[in-house]
């Protein structure tokens, strides 16, 4: 018997880039992976800051106002970082949650377009409201936010 080894090693092939829906689903899948990973660290560090650094018994509105930079003083770099940190967490958490709900809604109601679209409309509205709230909190001037904090 003779053995002919035609090739050696592994063949590598490439495919055309994905288009349309497939491309979107892949992007969403990757987003879930990366945002999920990031949120683990963000949530843990959030607990660390609030419960260890600040201390469970010292979490008050006044304390948050200090970190947020809303005591009527010029905003420091620390305040900016604090806001950015929570902005990233908010965006990722809302995005992750919304896409998760979209997946589950598709699982159970994908074959009933009316219910699926209705659900997605509700979810999108909630997302828009949360984002709006987030934007207001982020962009709030020092004066306005200290007034909010006073109330």
């Amino acid at each position, binding site marked *: 018997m003779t053995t002919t080894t035609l090739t050696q090693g592994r063949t*590598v092939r490439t495919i055309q880039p994905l288009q349309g829906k497939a491309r979107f689903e892949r992007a969403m899948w990757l987003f879930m992976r990366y945002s999920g990973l990031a949120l683990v660290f963000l949530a843990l560090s959030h607990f660390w800051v609030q419960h260890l650094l600040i201390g469970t018994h010292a979490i008050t509105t006044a304390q948050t106002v200090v970190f947020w930079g809303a005591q009527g003083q010029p905003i420091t770099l620390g305040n900016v970082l604090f806001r950015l940190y929570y902005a990233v967490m908010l965006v990722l958490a809302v995005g992750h949650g919304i896409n998760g709900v979209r997946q589950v809604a598709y699982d*159970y109601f*994908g074959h009933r377009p009316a219910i699926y679209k209705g659900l997605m409309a509700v979810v999108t509205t909630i997302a828009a409201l949360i984002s709006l709230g987030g934007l207001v909190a982020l962009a709030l001037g020092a004066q306005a936010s200290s007034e909010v904090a006073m109330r």
Partner: protein
Amino acid sequence: MKVTLKIKRFNPEVDKKPHWESYTVDVEPTDRVLDALHEVKWSIDGTLALRRSCAHGICGSDAMRINGRNMLACKALVKDVAKDGVITVEPILGLPVVKDLIVDMAPFFAHYRAIMPYLVNNDPPPERERLQSPEDRARYDDTTKCILCACCTTSCPSFWARGEYVGPAAIVQAHRFIFDSRDQAAEERLRILSEPDGVWRCRTVFNCTEACPRGIQVTKAIGEVKEALRTGVIR
């Protein structure tokens, strides 16, 4: 030893919904659940309906839910699954029950056919076989072992929720051809699997890997298909 089989029965001609029935049989601890079921069917109640053929873990026809886990009845030993002398047996989930332990496999095979489970090569046939390197052959070795028993697909929560999801078994079969260097339809299969009811419905729960009686790394194979879709490279 005496063992009680608690079997989920359903006869569409008389029953509105399934019900449980118990049978106590005398078996050896090293007998298989299939032997115990045969004992019920052949000596106690001939109306029990189940599907099996080879009885040796090859044909893949006797997948069932034994104590809540998908297994082949011909590969599960009584001593390994009996809990306080009781074994529960149900049909696999997610497919319509025809009678007792027999389900309608048509939707399962429809997904299988959808991924083009055959070699596509439009080059003129060589004088003898189409050769490939040992490394290329090893690439898809794991997924050649599939016997299409449906243990994986019917253990998958994503499939239970949405029967349109192509399911792990079809992805395993697609993997077997996508990563075969002699095949020329990998791109087409990948396009089918990149649709919303393709690989993205997999949430990496690993139920399929745990259920596979052939020990195929099902979730890993699905991951490799996702990786090919992510990078656009089949390697």
